[in-house]
């Protein structure tokens, strides 16, 4: 282990992060925190750099500029500790369609080195919470889009992370499924002391008491509570503020 863990109330700390693809800056001066147990929305239009930022936080990419700490562990030097505290739901579906729900979940748990017994317990807990225990033996192919997404969220929680990262998790879902997932993760955040960072470009996924990090062209023009972002942007609603901050015409 390199260095020590820094004591903090923040589950995620991103400091002066920058990233570029060749000569094009994708992110610049990105600084924000996600407090323990809080729900933060990374709000940005398509192409703002959300997926790049998510890839840096999950260390799929690496940046020499800036720092990322997860639960006090430096992502670059204490990668293992940092990643073991993180649960990730990617934008693209990542379940094996031909395997059963349970087989998919076992695979994930093994990647975190969990024991068979512990895994079985956790799978039953998470599936119970989703009221999907009786479908554990079904192939993922037979589940609808909304259920698949829920499975991916359950999978990301198996190893009991402190921090859950979701990259546009409602893409491709119909409106009722989308709403159900948004409500589900908000409820999760409230009931099980887990911090959430939710990336989206959809305003209606924001709840009034969420914290917001607006990302536009690789920078953060405003962040904080809904009230604070509205004050900074001078909008009446978060939709109006978002449009002002990202240079969109108000609808």
């Amino acid at each position, binding site marked *: 282990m390199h260095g020590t863990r820094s004591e903090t109330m923040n589950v995620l700390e991103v400091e002066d992060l920058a990233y570029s693809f060749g000569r094009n800056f994708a992110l610049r001066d990105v600084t924000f925190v996600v407090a323990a147990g809080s729900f933060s929305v990374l709000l940005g239009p398509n192409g703002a750099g959300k997926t790049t930022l998510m890839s840096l936080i999950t260390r799929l990419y690496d940046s020499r500029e800036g720092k990322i700490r997860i639960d006090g562990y430096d992502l670059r030097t204490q990668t293992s500790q940092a990643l073991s505290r993180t649960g990730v739901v990617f934008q693209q579906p*990542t379940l094996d369609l031909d395997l059963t729900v349970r087989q998919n979940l076992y695979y994930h748990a093994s990647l975190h080195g969990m024991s068979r017994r512990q895994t079985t317990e956790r799978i039953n807990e998470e599936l119970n919470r989703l009221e999907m225990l009786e479908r554990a033996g079904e192939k993922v192919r037979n589940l609808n889009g909304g259920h698949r997404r829920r499975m991916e969220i359950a999978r990301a929680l198996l190893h009991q992370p402190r921090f859950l990262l979701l990259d546009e998790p409602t893409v491709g879902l119909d409106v009722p499924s989308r709403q159900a997932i948004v409500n589900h993760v908000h409820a999760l955040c409230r009931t099980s002391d887990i911090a959430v960072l939710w990336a989206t470009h959809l305003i209606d996924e924001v709840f009034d008491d969420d914290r917001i990090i607006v990302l536009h062209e690789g920078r953060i023009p405003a962040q904080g509570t809904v009230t604070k972002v509205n004050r900074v942007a001078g909008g009446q609603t978060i939709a109006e503020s978002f449009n002002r901050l990202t240079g969109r015409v108000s609808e």
Partner: protein
Amino acid sequence: MSPVHYARCFNGILRREALRFLQQRERFVAALVRPLVWLLIFAAGFRSVLGVSIVPPYETYILYEVYITPGLIGMIQLFNGMQSSLSMVYDREMGSMKTLLVSPLPRWYLLLCKLLAGTFVSILQVYTFLAVAWFFEIDAPLYGYIALMPALVLTGMMLGALGLLLSSLIRQLENFAGVMNFVIFPMFFLSSALYPVWRLRESSPLLADIAMFNPFTHAVETIRFAFAGQINWESLIVSASVLVVFITLAIIGYNPARGTLSRKAGGPA
């Protein structure tokens, strides 16, 4: 992370690969039919055209079918290595690569597990192929079947590592056909899989020299000698060295600091 965690991780990756293999019947059938077509049709047709004189490890004249069997075993592993490694970088599968790489275990270990698991699948394919071939009188002494196992681990890892390396280097692979044309076919035809290198030398010394530099030739010869219950030290050492080089380069290729994954993404999204 203790050794127990590492072992559980390997176990999980291996299980997934085996389950996927058993679920994807088409892939299994294709993996079996491809070499059988070569063995039962191509080899039968060319038996009289391509006479093979006595070459080590064979001690007598052999049927052409017997000669190309090790080459076809190599082909199974070559296809499997390309498929299991390269499939990860296609859009459809990119997600599963990401899922693997966000595991808290070190990346080199995850890639190694993935390689071993893919090799295990290729070995299942090879022995199934040999079981079918046995009915067509392609057989070896029992110790040949046993000696083949460690050789297959080595050659399967080497060819899988090549796939992994290519997946980290090549930014865009439109589809598997590209890999077939630019990697699999040249490697297969410019090797000792279908004809001995000396035979190739008669037509073109240059091509024969290239074949001797082709790692696939050494994979096939390692397999050929093992199946005959012998060891070809030269090919064995070359295959092992190439394996080390390919794995090292593939691990460097997947180092996040080098940004292979980000280059593949092709810019901000």
